[in-house]
């Protein structure tokens, strides 16, 4: 699956170069009066970064240049923020409730996502949401999630509750 690190393809180099340069320009913002020295330095640094680390970059760089994916990525940020807020209130309610209605445990869930990036984003999203935390990931597409209020230990049921809401958006972004 992983290709040889020594021979990065040109497309990968271009992809890493573009993304790094974009971030560089965002952070230094040399445009108020145009600062050519900063822009040229940024291009050189991005080129170095692309040549050295291009081999590690995403496996399908063309996908990374598709603007539709970035649109869904933007949507995902807002959606995730909403879910995190809701989960926050839920956890706060459980903690402040006099009975402390929690039922912690580790459940096994299954994901339909295939690419490594999508799985990583999913795992990180689950961890970011209060109340759930990814513990481990297996090669067959199973995630082990620590859940503050285990409502079902069945794989299908737990998958629907924990993973379901992220999956459809992530599939549009990464696959």
């Amino acid at each position, binding site marked *: 699956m*992983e290709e*040889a*690190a*020594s021979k990065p393809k040109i497309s990968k180099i271009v992809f*890493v170069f573009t*993304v*790094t340069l974009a*971030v*560089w320009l965002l*952070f*230094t913002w040399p445009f108020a009066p145009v*600062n050519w*020295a*900063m822009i040229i*330095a940024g291009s050189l*640094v*991005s080129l*170095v*970064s*692309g040549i*050295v*680390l291009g*081999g*590690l*970059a*995403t496996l399908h760089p063309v996908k990374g240049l598709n603007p539709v994916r970035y649109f869904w990525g933007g949507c995902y940020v807002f959606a995730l923020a909403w879910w995190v807020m809701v989960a926050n209130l839920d956890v706060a309610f459980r903690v402040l409730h006099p009975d402390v209605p929690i039922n912690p445990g580790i459940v096994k869930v299954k994901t339909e996502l295939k690419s*490594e*990036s999508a*799985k*990583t984003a999913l*795992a*990180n999203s689950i961890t970011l949401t209060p109340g759930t935390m*990814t513990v*481990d*990931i297996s*090669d067959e597409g199973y995630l082990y999630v620590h859940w503050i209020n285990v409502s079902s230990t069945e794989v299908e049921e737990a998958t629907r509750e924990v993973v379901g809401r992220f999956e459809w958006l992530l599939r549009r972004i990464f696959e």
Partner: protein
Amino acid sequence: MTGMSPIVKTVTRWVSPFILAFGIYIALTGHLTPGGGFPGGVIVAGCFILITLAYGKERVEGIFDLKSASVTDSLASLSFLCMGLLGYVFGGGFLNNFIQSGFPGKAFELLSGGNMPIINIAIGFKVGGSLFVVFAYLALFRAIEEE
């Protein structure tokens, strides 16, 4: 070393170009902002150490292995020394700023430091190379012994 779980690998893949660029940025603008050669070099070395830890020794071999790290180390220190000696020849004193300070650009711009950015870059490479060598000798100790 086989590396870590897919999550660590993927995140490493995502962030490592930015870490590298950030390290070089810190070293490059050492004369304008806090930072300089040493922190920048540490960040650059951290990037490669992260890749080594996440992917294992084999993966990093084509990029930045032990030999290229020590060569970088020596070359960077030699170039630092050369800058000092060039100052001695042209500027009248060891490490003198022989490119006039503030000459190409105005003050508070990237090219205003004379020879400071060059020295900072040399220090950055030196620190990055030597830190990676230290890491490689300590963390990959067994692997090197077995060869």
